[in-house]
């Protein structure tokens, strides 16, 4: 049985990382060249880790499924990236950023990790700026900040509504520099199919070349997964269509524990579903809530156009329910509040499943030019999709699956329970608790890659300097490759009648209905049965055209859906186990009189880390108790 040791350093919170760094072992530059590191994924986590490890002189191999590392889904992050610079002089600090994240995560994250993420945030901003990321500036040439949900300071650095794109271009350029120098080798259009574990250590991966269909073996002294989240399990989500949970799931099946899988953020401001053919939901950045006001009509089913509804007949329900934070409450709170209004019959739009996000007042007060400068590209995007201009009529928005706080369990060094296997960025679980605050993902994912992993991985590699290059001809590689090939063969030979997309849609509906914004015992139990049935049907009635030995996008989808069918079940087990509400995990049985999430600190103040126990068996729960030494547990209130 795996014992969980989070390896949190001793000492005062503010000194933990400094003390820990002083004790981490080093690898000298001559030895770094002899050590191979595999990085899977090229978003902000993967690119930052790979370029930094390359700069340090390690021999790095990077993999992504896209045709270019610049396309990873960090590119779609919109609103911004947090840091505790206190450039606004509004009494911000590392401690305050830490506190906001702990509270925002509803006291289900590790204090030490969160503090460290806040601590390195300033370095991240410095680095991106040096790389040429054009954060918004004022006329004096200094950097501007704005505010985000769940906080009362302005600490968000931004580049209009495409901060992720601009940061990723910076990270990609640094990665390109290392590729140019030969420290990093790039393998695009490769999908990780399995992890290779030798003598208990992560030693390589099996990938499928998506162009030729060839199965390749790659070895290394350590493997870093930077493969993002699994929000596409809902089928409709704000994620890129090809984002998937397979790398993490494969690692889980090889022994890495999976933590808090049911903690999924449902983002409150996405463009609502327009038709049955829709394959994704486009996000409208949370930053819009700085200037936009959320409302629904006070009258149920009000047939009037939004602009015809007078002020006193509008219910600005966030401002009404949460006067202290108003429209800038955290995402989980805003999402549930929108669902509550829509479920009560006050929703707007053709389906009644949306609410207004209105810029009328901001345009009047600050002028159209201000709105254009700050949100121009978002307004354009909205208009292209819906055919309506948010300058003229309020946006319509609804919550959508977005970010997974859950992920592979990692210790303070970001190492999973498999020695030599690391998980960074959204792929791990450690910093956002049960709900992530806006603009904290770019911050965490970059901090992991630039300033944390490069230090902690050296401590592990210090023991590997005498290990020669790992051969790919070992029995472990043989059997992993065979398993991958057999599985592909099984998928290809089902020859049923239903497409992978159709199964994915059905899976998504089960997950959204029973393990989405609200959950209850009965629904979750029902979901377990439904998922079993769907899995059986999938393996008996799937249809994939063409062959496995060529570019085959249907096979890619099918392989990911097959993993999602299993991961979905783990999410349900986790949601069932946690009979409390916390952050984004809302159990109907556990709510306050006013309908807010009600935690049960006595029984659930732990990280639920799940061990894979074989196909068809119930996973085994391990608990990492969360100790709060520096913040006091309290009801999370934004009123």
């Amino acid at each position, binding site marked *: 049985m795996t014992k969980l040791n989070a390896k949190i350093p001793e000492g005062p919170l503010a000194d933990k990382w400094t003390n820990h760094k002083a004790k981490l072992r080093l690898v000298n530059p001559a030895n770094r060249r002899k050590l191979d590191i595999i990085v899977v994924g090229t978003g902000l986590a993967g690119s930052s880790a790979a370029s*930094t490890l390359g*700069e340090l002189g390690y021999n790095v191999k990077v993999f992504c499924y*896209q*045709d*270019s590392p*610049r*396309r990873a*889904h960090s*590119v*779609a992050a919109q609103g911004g990236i947090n840091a505790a*610079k206190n450039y606004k002089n509004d009494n911000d600090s590392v401690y305050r950023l830490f506190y906001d994240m702990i509270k925002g995560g509803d006291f289900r994250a590790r204090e030490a990790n969160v503090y460290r993420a806040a601590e390195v945030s300033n*370095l991240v901003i*410095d*680095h991106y*700026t*040096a*790389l*040429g*990321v*054009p*954060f*918004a*500036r*004022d006329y004096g*040439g200094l*950097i501007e900040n704005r505010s985000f949900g769940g906080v009362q300071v302005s600490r968000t650095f931004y580049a209009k509504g*495409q901060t992720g*794109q*601009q940061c990723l*271009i910076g990270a990609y*350029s*640094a990665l*390109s*520099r290392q*590729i*140019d120098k030969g420290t990093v080798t*790039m393998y*695009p259009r490769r999908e990780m199919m399995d992890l290779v574990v030798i003598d208990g250590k992560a030693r390589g991966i099996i990938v499928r070349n998506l162009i030729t269909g060839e199965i390749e073996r790659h070895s290394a002294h350590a493997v870093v997964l930077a493969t993002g989240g699994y929000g596409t399990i809902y089928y409709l989500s704000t994620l*890129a269509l*090809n984002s998937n949970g397979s790398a993490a799931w494969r690692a889980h099946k090889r022994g890495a524990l999976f933590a808090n899988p049911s903690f999924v953020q449902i983002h409150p401001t996405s463009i609502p579903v327009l*038709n049955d*053919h829709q*394959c*994704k939901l486009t996000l409208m950045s949370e930053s819009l809530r700085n200037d936009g006001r959320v409302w629904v009509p006070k009258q149920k089913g009000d047939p009037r156009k939004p602009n015809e509804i007078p002020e006193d007949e509008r219910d600005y329900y966030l401002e009404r329910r949460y006067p202290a934070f108003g429209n800038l409450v955290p995402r989980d709170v805003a999402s549930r509040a929108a669902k509550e209004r829509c479920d009560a019959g006050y929703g707007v739009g053709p389906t009644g499943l949306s609410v207004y996000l209105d810029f009328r007042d901001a345009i009047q007060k600050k002028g159209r030019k201000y709105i254009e400068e700050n949100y121009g590209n978002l307004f*354009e*995007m909205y208009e*292209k*999709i819906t055919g309506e201009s948010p300058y003229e009529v309020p946006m319509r928005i609804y919550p959508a699956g977005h970010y997974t706080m859950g992920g592979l369990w990692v210790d303070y060094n970001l190492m999973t329970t498999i020695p030599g296997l690391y998980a960074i960025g959204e792929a791990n679980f450690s910093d956002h608790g049960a709900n992530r605050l806006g603009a904290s993902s770019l911050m965490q994912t970059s901090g992991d890659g*630039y*300033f944390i992993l490069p230090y902690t991985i050296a401590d592990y590699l210090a023991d590997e300097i005498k290990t020669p290059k790992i051969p790919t001809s070992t029995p472990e590689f043989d059997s992993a490759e065979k398993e991958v090939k057999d599985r592909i063969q099984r998928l290809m030979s089902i020859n049923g009648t239903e*497409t992978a*997309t*159709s199964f994915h849609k059905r899976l998504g509906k089960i997950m959204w209905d029973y393990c989405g914004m609200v959950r209850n015992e009965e629904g979750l139990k029902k979901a377990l049965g439904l998922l079993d049935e769907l899995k059986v049907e999938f393996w008996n009635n799937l*249809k*994939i*055209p063409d062959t496995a030995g*060529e*570019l085959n*996008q*249907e096979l890619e989808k099918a392989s990911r859906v097959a993993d999602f069918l299993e991961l979905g079940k783990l999410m349900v087990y986790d949601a069932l186990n946690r009979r409390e509400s916390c952050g984004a995990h809302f159990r109907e049985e556990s709510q306050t009189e006013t309908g807010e999430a009600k935690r049960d600190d006595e029984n659930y103040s732990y990280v639920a880390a799940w061990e894979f126990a074989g196909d068809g068996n119930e996973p085994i729960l391990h608990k990492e108790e969360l100790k709060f030494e520096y913040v006091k547990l309290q009801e999370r209130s934004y009123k």
Partner: protein
Amino acid sequence: MKVKLRIWRQKNSQSKGKFEVYELNDVAPDMSFLEMLDSLNQRLVKEGKSPVAFDHDCREGICGSCGIYINGRPHGNDHRTTTCELRMRRFKDGETITVEPWRAAAFPVVKDLVVDRSAFDKIIQAGGYISVNAGAAQDANSIPVPKHNADVAFDTASCIGCGACVAACKNASAMLFVAAKITHLAQFPQGRVEAPERVKRMVAKMDELGFGSCTNTRACEAECPKGISISTIAKLNREYITAKLKD
């Protein structure tokens, strides 16, 4: 609405491609162009036929994966729009739509509508960066950058590397792509030290990879989904000449 699709089908880079015709009768005007292709593919798979391969990912116009030549224009007929953002309401009921991959020597076809754009990555690897290691930067506010420069940097860094500029150009020139990166990086005080080397290496790499030369037809600017201005090419030329004069 109904549409007739003439789609370029090509099994792999070695084989010769040809157009095939498909008819769709239940297209919703709200659908994106790619959702329309998704629905065609669902049908083809069910019929046991090979679906149309195309690159796509974010489906919100920011990753740069998608790129289809639609009725003779990269990303179709909508202004400042990627293929994934293009909506079927932009087409007429009953219209015949011709669907092709990017066509450029430097972007060989991989399969159907999928092309190999790794040449763009190679150009960036030849100097499209500011050389600074993680940990070596000073405080972000220690170097003020005029707002105008920051805005120009933002606009040019908005390039998503989709390749529409190359596909639009009769010479298959990559000048707009290279110029956007040069202009982006030229806005900051940091990185000036390596600017001459950068522009020379990137231009040499572009030429080496088989992109054509620029003859100022402005087709790239007209088709760029991110609205990158051809004035960046003037900036590129200035940087290039200045660098060459120093040789």
